[in-house]
């Protein structure tokens, strides 16, 4: 269970957490995690607090996700990034596409 999702009871927040390694190994799990969004146009949080490793396939998956859901959600934020992950996301200019915390 390296990808978990939690949709709040009011349907306004969807939190997707990736544990351990974020790479092509979770490609299906990750896609499933945002496949149903409800009707409330939720804010989507990608919680990376437990993500120790990621590679460029993770970045690709994040971009694919964004493309797929951007019109059905309020916003997408990548949260709880450790300094290394944050700098990788910034080098990849993800800060222009996502809110990164």
């Amino acid at each position: 269970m390296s990808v978990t999702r939690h949709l709040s009871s009011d349907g306004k927040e969807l939190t997707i957490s990736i544990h351990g390694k974020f790479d092509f190994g979770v490609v299906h799990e990750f896609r499933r995690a945002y496949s149903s969004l409800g009707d409330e146009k939720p804010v989507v949080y990608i919680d990376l607090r437990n993500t120790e490793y990621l590679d460029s396939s993770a970045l690709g998956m994040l971009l694919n996700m964004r493309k797929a859901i951007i019109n059905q959600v309020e916003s997408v934020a990548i949260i709880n990034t450790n300094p290394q992950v944050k700098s990788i996301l910034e080098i990849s200019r993800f800060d222009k596409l996502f809110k990164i915390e």
Partner: protein
Amino acid sequence: MASQASETTPLELVIFHDDSRFAHDSIDLLAGFPFLIVKESLGLPATIAATKNKLKKRRPTVIIGREVPSQVKELPTSSHLLLITQAELSEQVLNAWQGDVLMGDCSPAMVRKRLSLWCASHRVENQLASFEESLSWYMQRIEREHELIEHIFRNAMSRNYLDYPHIRTLLAPAEKFNGDLCLVAPSPTGSLYVMMADFTGHGLAPATGALPVSQAFFAMSERNVSIAEMVTEFNFRLSRLLPDNMFCACFLMELSANGERITYWNGGMPPALVFGSDGEIKHRLTAKHMALGIVPTADFESDVTTLKVGSGDSIALYTDGVIELLSQQREFLGLDALEDLLRRYPERERFTDLLSELEHFRGEEPLRDDLSLAILECRETGLEPRREESNRDIFPFHFSTTLSRRELQQTDVVSTLVSALGRLPPLTAHRTTIYLLLAEVFNNALEHGLLGLESAIKAQDQGFETYYELRQEKLSQLEDGQITIQLTYFSEANQLQFEVENNGAAWRFSSEAIDAEATDDEQAYGRGLALLMQLADNLEWSSDGRKVRFRYDLSQLG
């Protein structure tokens, strides 16, 4: 006529006497009473002080003499002494004598009655004295134990970050030990955890529950554990630990590093109040869950709620001791009054005014319950993300491995390598980046060099899935091929050199391709090379693109 004393163990006496006939008659009479035993019968020494060791503390002692022995003046003041004499006692002697007196002209029935009462009172006094002794022993023992427990609590709470500059707290236990718990801790990513909890009751017993919870809280804060996982762990621990009639109401929250987002879980606590700088109450974060320590893990609900907060907002967390504060007129403060106080004193500087109002409301009325109030300002935490210490025990090293078909098919090469090498001190703080770099060049060697995959597949609809399914398929069919990985750490330059070589197809590096990819921010693939170019130094390909070598500077911050 059975006296109370005769029903219990007979009392042991020591007798001093003047060897007169009167004395011997009296001793015979006393010896016949069932409620006492003449332990020793001694002649009057020249001075009674000489027999001091016989006059033990609270040992009942009878002095018998035809005349009043002159030695009685030397006796210590004690109600454990009884003088039996035939002589008439002068007022002066009676005043000086602190013990009881029995005149020789009493009938044997009267002597028996008096002796029995004397024995009874002696027993009561003895009992009282031993109660006093044990009470003071217990008091000392409790004091000593409280000191120890206080010491343990102080140590347990030493990591509590109540000095965080943007929180104000009032923590008032009703007794020495606090059954409320207000914990603050920074996370490694710069966010802030705050917990307000209230164990059933007050005093030492509920405070004991605070120990495991606080230790778990601090340990998990350091590991950057999510609120949902934290409360699940607390509930797991407490439901096994607490008796059925005890539980722990808890409000746990995390304020994001930028101060714009609160994630919280409220189990059985009064609503936390989010209010603006003008005092307007914006949100009441009511409990959606049961308190901790009640439901088993399988039924436990760990759903958290996330809330956007504005700059200038604050959040008030408190235990029911605040709204159930009792005034001298025996009225509860109530939630409305608390909200009213926050409306009147929303500013940081007015916290003391708010506290004075609470004090004023309570007046002389003693605290009935522990009372805790914390007001946290929702603003950028200013907490530095933790950087792992990495400048110790540094030495140069070289690592090399050549992997062939079997290992490539069966091993998660990059994870295994980085998990192992990532423990070496110079690499620890950089292992996420090292993983990324190694993953890029290793996957490049495997996917393009040995498996002949084309990245362009990723651009198709569902291309990612197709690509990685194809990768699996081709990898399992791989017949030949090897990849050599060499990692060299140069301690003086503090650089890690990567060399990855495969014996597969040639690969041509095209800088135009990179440029084209890098300008399209939304293209989902081809980012690996761009990242490599930005993060690596001295990047070079050789052997027709089969071999790549670069260095990564570990001096840069994570």
